């Protein structure tokens, strides 16, 4: 996973997340949208044929003076907690 910030301001961040596809990006986007201080989150991925960039670019917009990078970190933690909770629930049933 290679990160490269393409655009950054106080409440907005665009970051390229190398090597990922919809599998992780959509989960991450979903987690970001559940975050209280995130007003908008999306990712953009072009298929190789379209000639544009192929690595996903995640864009986050926050409100209330929250650093988008902190929101991203908290979303990553949230995804990790979800996977742990899912594994525990699955193993309890199995």
């Amino acid at each position, binding site marked *: 996973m290679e*990160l490269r910030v393409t655009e950054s301001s106080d409440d907005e961040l665009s970051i390229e997340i190398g090597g990922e596809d919809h599998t992780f990006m*959509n*989960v991450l986007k*979903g987690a970001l949208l*559940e975050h209280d201080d995130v007003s908008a989150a999306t990712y953009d991925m072009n298929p190789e044929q379209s000639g544009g960039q192929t690595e996903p670019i995640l864009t986050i917009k926050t409100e209330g003076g929250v650093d988008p990078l902190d929101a991203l970190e908290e979303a990553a933690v949230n*995804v990790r907690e979800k*996977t742990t909770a899912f594994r525990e629930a*699955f193993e309890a049933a*199995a």
Partner: protein
Amino acid sequence: MTEEYDVEFVEREDRKARFLVRGVTPAFANGIRRAMIADVPTMAIDTVRFVENSSVMFDEQLALRLGLVPLTTPPEGEFTEDDTVTLSIDVEGPATAYSGDLVSSDDLVQPADENVPIIELKDDQRLEAEADAVLNRGKDHAKHQGGVAVGYRHLQRVEVGDDVPEFEEQERRIVRGVIEEDGELVPTSEFDHDLTNRYPGKEVRVEDVPNAFVFHVETDGSFTVDELVTRAVDSIEARAIELEEAVQL
């Protein structure tokens, strides 16, 4: 933010299972499904060295067939992506070479199915080859895809209403998947997927239960369903941890 998930098995075998998960978002459910198909590494033959092949098929055709044979995948951590396991096959005609004739150098990596015909050999035909199996993901080649026909559907809740008007012809009401009836889970195959078989002469209303998904998971024999699901979840978790650490820097 703590998540509350609840998993319940509807159907359960080693290679095939259906289970209900409550409390997942569609994004997370889809992440798990995609990870099961493309991101869980399995062993498969990748390189074949032919010593003798006098059969009716070309070397590369046989190599493809050998690659598609599912191999049991060792427990996590036993192998890394670069390790190889050598399997050899030596069959002389008249006979048929089966996947079960593959002799592995490692007990953990064995053909998962033994009766897959590789090639039928006639008199004086012979197949002798050595093959290297590697660990890789379904994203790179379909032969490394451990999950077969992995998918999910919403859990459906059925509400039984009034009687159908006396002289009205009742139309069939097809539902596929699993329905919930007073907390009981009923696979629709029990009533031939037709709600009018289960509730004759009644009006029914079907609605999706929010955030409840019934997963259907099958594996090609590389590992059990439990193993596939846990490894898929692990792969998402590994990426979340990687991102977390990368952002902290």
